[in-house]
């Protein structure tokens, strides 16, 4: 995937906070990444890592009391994180589409599929009602709904889970957006339907040149779909890089542990490698590197640096990892590659 000079989406030093009575919780802490036009960026992490909040912040759907406390989101050369409600509304749907996890709650059960599609199309494109309906049928056909001209007048409950998710995808595509935020689009679906939806997302992304920010906890989905992947941990990016590199040659100790923990068909390991402990709560994120209490290599860095100073993303192998083991300018330059797992 060639990267043009100006990326489609730039997120710079984004910080998302939740003010509570007991103090401010920082759910997303100083993360930066870019998505190029037509690129699929996977965002993985365990629950509470802040991946969905990042997606919600990009399309301006962060629910109060959550708020963007710092940083910038630049879409197509324009800053969008400080836009008013009406201005972001014009971009949302028109230029940035969204697909959420549960296809049943993303559709209004009281309206037919056709009404929801034509409403979206008419809001964003200058089409007459008849033209909008024709476009809606085309969209449904494109996402693989059989007998679209007839099905368009059906209600969401008359569709199965996989078909509903297809409808949600057609809604996201309605105005030909440049970017789609897909938040766990296949998590609620069975494995055979999941395969269909992934294939569909990839095909549409390719044909329309749409960039996709694919948020999921399922590394298998990322492996098949994404060009690059960002691994999140406790509100920060632990590692970011080309998908094959991150999967086959992970550089951050967390990513290495995560890859070893995924069971895979065909490998006959008696035990999975496990990361002891669990992700810290937002109220108790440790100082320094957030992963240091669970990290097996914390003692390989001199002067307790991991527990004092937070690492920024450093070049590591062919990816970038937020880990002091990769600080070649400092006194540490341990070869971490010996711990590379092969999956």
């Amino acid at each position, binding site marked *: 995937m060639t990267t043009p000079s100006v990326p489609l989406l730039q997120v710079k030093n984004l910080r998302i906070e939740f003010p509570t009575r007991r103090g401010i919780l920082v759910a997303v802490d100083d993360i930066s990444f870019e998505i190029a036009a037509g690129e699929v960026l996977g965002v993985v992490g*365990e*629950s509470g890592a802040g991946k969905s909040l990042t997606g919600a912040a990009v399309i301006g759907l962060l629910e109060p009391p959550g708020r963007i406390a710092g940083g910038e989101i630049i879409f197509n050369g324009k800053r969008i994180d400080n836009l008013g409600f009406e201005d972001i509304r014009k971009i949302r749907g028109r230029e940035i589409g969204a697909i959420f996890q549960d296809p049943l709650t993303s559709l209004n059960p009281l309206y037919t599929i056709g009404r929801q599609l034509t409403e979206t199309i008419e809001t964003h494109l200058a089409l007459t009602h008849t033209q909008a309906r024709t476009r809606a049928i085309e969209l449904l056909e494109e996402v693989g709904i059989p007998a679209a001209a007839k099905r368009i007048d059906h209600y969401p409950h008359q569709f*199965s889970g*996989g*078909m509903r998710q297809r409808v949600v995808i057609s809604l996201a595509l309605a105005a030909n957006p440049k970017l789609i935020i897909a938040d766990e689009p296949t998590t609620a679906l*069975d*494995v*055979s*339907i*999941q*395969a*269909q939806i*992934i*294939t569909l997302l990839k095909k549409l992304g390719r044909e329309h040149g749409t960039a996709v920010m694919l948020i999921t*906890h*399922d*590394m*298998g*989905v990322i*492996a*098949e779909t994404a060009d690059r992947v960002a691994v999140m941990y406790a509100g920060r990016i632990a590692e970011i890089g080309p*998908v*094959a590199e991150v*999967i*086959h040659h992970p550089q951050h100790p967390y990513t290495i*542990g*995560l*890859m*070893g*923990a*995924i*069971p*895979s*068909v*065909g490998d006959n*390991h*008696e*035990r*999975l*490698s*496990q*990361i*002891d402990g*669990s*992700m810290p709560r937002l109220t108790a994120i440790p100082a320094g590197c957030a992963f240091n209490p669970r990290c097996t290599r914390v003692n390989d860095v001199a002067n307790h640096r991991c527990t004092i100073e937070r690492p920024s993303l450093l070049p590591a192998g062919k990816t970038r990892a937020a880990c002091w083991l990769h600080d070649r300018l400092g006194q540490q330059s341990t070869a971490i590659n010996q711990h590379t797992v092969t*999956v």
Partner: protein
Amino acid sequence: MSSAKTLLEVCDVAKEFDVSRPWLNRVLEGQDKQILKAVDGVSFTINRGETLALVGESGCGKSTVARLVCGLYTPSRGSIVFDGVDMAKVASDELRGLRKRFQMIFQDPYASLNPRWRVGKIIAEPIVSHGLATTRAELKARVGQLLTQVGLSPLDADKFPHEFSGGQRQRISIARALSSNPEFLVCDEPTSALDVSVQAQILNLMKDLQREFGLTYLFISHNLAVVSHIATRVGVMYLGRLVEIADTRRIFTRPLHPYTQMLQSAIPDLKMTGKQRTPVAGEVPNPLNPPTGCAFHPRCPHANERCRRERPNMIEHPESGQVACHAVEEGRIDIKIAA
């Protein structure tokens, strides 16, 4: 059929649910009763010390089988024989003795622990109810021992479930299940609510406990990668019926039934980076109105007239296991050998 090795024998078990609308609506609107056949004639055996996994997509009846085996549902037909005793025919006091020999672990560790009870009380409940401890000190020591076995601290007994993370709660569920010294654990999607790194911890723990106590597992899951890791044998279910059952290795390297082949090719795989996979057409039909003949025939690339008409029975396969498919029986399928 049952031998000394067999711990559980499930024979032609079925469970039907009445999902009809209320009587008045039926009378006024002239509708018939609607019966959902959640499980429709399933037979399998589990040997001591092994892990049988049941896999399938949502609605295939795998969780219903788990609940039938545990006695949470009574079967509409068929028999469940645990260690030579038919559970349907046994007297209630004898059933109580049997009950402590098998336990269940549920999917959602947030819903399966009483939030108002301290962890110690939750784990002690089966011990008390089966009268397995005589003194308070003995009970406390046993709870502490169980907590240590699942990787928690004996001091955690005084805490409440909300003080623990999802993975730790599932450890508490496992400690509770182990408290009556069972031989057989029914695990209904024990890791699907957990994150992958925590899932790895729980799967490792379950394997360790199996080795230590010689436990037998019935493991229900929709995740084939997890199943390939933990199971000795795998049964594949589709619309309330078993379509194939065999050794884990055979299921994943030489799947025979077209549905098993389809599931296997649909697993998202880390090795697949950037590769295309062939998705399978179609969806699971409505179980209220299942297709005639073989339930899989509308999605099956090998279906013919016989498949549409006649329901296939389980046949022994020369290599290992059993499969219910006319096409396999007649040799109409090229068996794909996975690397």
